[in-house]
Structures are given as structure tokens and as C-alpha cells.
């Protein structure tokens, strides 16, 4: 059995449909638990005061802003190499979600920055690469809309996605490359023995899981919509040719 059979649009529609309801339930549980626990039932930080509660939305959205672009990179490469339409449509479907996540990360970071750093914005390496990533998201979506031929649009957006990946990775690792930035190191890391204190860490994990699940759910729904939209367009063209 090959995994590529799921790249067939009708097979993708058949397989993804039963996943939608359980995924919605899981998303609501994780996101609800993470945000409610984090907002209502965690103490203030001794340095940051109550602004520490912003961590439950800022960290997961920043994580998803970068990972959405990396997911788009993988599906764009699959499109380039294997010419599976579903992968190109999945990349297109993920872009507005990634853009929204980037915007949330930028807004919540700025709101947190004002009381903690004394400024909403600084041309710090991580903040700047995040801003450029957001512009890439906008450019990527605009390019899809601007080109009529879907295969050509998929090719050109895939190239744009590969170029933009530099900024996605830069957003993640800028703190390590340049030490002069204002932004602190990662709040969570797999190679650290201790991340943030447990009292903040546990609800944060729920919140991250909720954001990841929300992303997967929305990508599935949007990809299904893109597949339907493409079929709709084909049928409309056939009707016009017959008329």
C-alpha cells in the first residue's frame, strides 16, 4: 500500500471526512483547557506580572506561524516532484491560517512588549524576520489569486514558498544567530532540561496542542473546499463549452 494513494482527490475526500468530527472535539477540548486553565487558574509571574498569561496565545501562534510555512514547503516540494494536485491545494489552504497565526504572534508580542520592553516594536532580528514572513504569506496568497492557470499558479507559489522558507527558519533561529536582539530565547525547547516553570508549562502544552489541532482541522476543511472548488470550476467550464 502506498501513501500516495491519499493524494488522489476522491480518496482524500473519503479518508478526511470521518476525521473532521473527532478532530473538532479534540481541538475544542485542548484549546479550551489550555486557554481557560492558563487565563483563569495560573498565578502571575514574579517579574512579568499578569502579562505572563499572554504566553498561552503568543507561543503557540508563533510556533504555528513557522510550522505552517514549513508544512507548505513540504507540500510544495511534493507538488514539484510528484505533481499531486492535493498537495498543491493543501499548501494553498494552509496559507491564510499561517498568515493569521503570524498576525496573532506579531500583535500579542507587541502588546506584551510595551509593558515589558517599553516598546511595541523593535527592529530586532526575530521580530523583523517574523514581519517579513507575514509579507511572504500575503505575497503567496496574492500570487495564487493572480494567476488563472492553477498548475502554473501552483508552480510559481511553490517557488515563492521555497524562497520564503529562509525567513521561516530565520524566524525560528534568529535568536541564536544574532545575540544583540531584544527577543529572549525560546520558551520551550526539546533539548532543555527545564523550560518554563511547571505551573505555566502544563497549560501551555494544552494550548499548543489546541493550536496544532486547530491548524490541522482548518487545513483539512480548506483543502476539501479547494478540491470542491476545482471540480466546480471544471463543471462550469464544461457547461459553458456545451452551451
Amino acid at each position: 500500500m502506498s501513501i500516495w494513494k491519499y493524494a488522489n482527490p476522491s480518496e482524500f475526500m473519503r479518508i478526511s471526512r470521518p476525521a473532521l468530527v473527532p478532530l473538532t472535539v479534540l481541538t475544542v477540548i485542548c484549546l479550551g483547557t489550555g486557554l481557560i486553565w492558563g487565563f483563569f487558574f495560573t498565578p502571575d509571574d514574579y517579574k512579568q506580572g499578569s502579562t505572563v498569561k499572554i504566553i498561552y496565545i503568543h507561543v503557540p501562534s508563533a510556533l504555528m506561524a513557522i510550522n505552517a510555512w514549513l508544512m507548505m514547503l513540504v507540500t510544495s516540494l511534493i507538488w514539484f516532484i510528484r505533481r499531486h494536485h492535493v498537495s498543491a491545494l493543501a499548501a494553498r489552504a494552509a496559507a491564510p491560517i499561517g498568515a493569521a497565526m503570524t498576525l496573532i504572534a506579531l500583535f500579542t508580542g507587541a502588546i506584551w512588549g510595551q509593558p515589558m520592553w517599553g516598546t511595541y516594536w523593535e527592529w530586532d532580528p526575530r521580530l523583523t524576520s517574523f514581519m517579513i514572513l507575514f509579507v511572504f504569506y500575503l505575497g503567496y496568497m496574492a500570487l495564487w489569486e493572480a494567476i488563472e492557470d492553477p498548475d502554473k499558479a501552483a508552480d510559481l507559489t511553490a517557488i515563492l514558498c521555497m524562497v520564503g522558507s529562509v525567513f521561516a527558519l530565520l524566524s525560528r533561529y534568529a535568536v541564536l544567530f544574532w545575540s544583540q536582539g531584544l527577543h529572549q530565547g525560546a520558551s520551550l525547547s526539546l533539548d532543555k532540561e527545564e523550560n518554563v516553570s511547571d505551573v505555566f508549562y502544563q497549560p501551555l502544552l494544552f494550548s499548543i496542542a489546541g493550536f496544532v489541532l486547530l491548524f490541522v482541522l482548518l487545513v483539512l476543511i480548506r483543502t476539501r473546499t479547494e478540491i470542491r472548488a476545482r471540480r466546480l470550476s471544471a463543471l462550469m467550464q464544461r457547461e459553458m463549452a456545451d452551451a
Partner: protein
Amino acid sequence: MPDLGAYAGAVLSAYAVTLVLLGGLILLTWRRSARIKAALAKIEARND
């Protein structure tokens, strides 16, 4: 409601922006999905 102290405005506005953006994204996704689904069902019925 927890006591957010001097930073209440910052914390609440961060959550408000997030909820508005996520809510808008979910609403737009759902609306487009419903619209395309209905249009496809209509044209498929016409072609059957």
C-alpha cells in the same frame, strides 16, 4: 475573572485580538466551505 492588576489592558487586548482573528478565520473557512459545497451540489444535480 482573575485580578490582572496594572496589566489588565494588555492581557485582555491580547486575548481579544486572538479571539477575533481566530473567530474570523473559522467563520470565513466555514462560510466558503458551505458556499462552494452548495454550488457544487447544484451543478452536479443539473448534470445528473
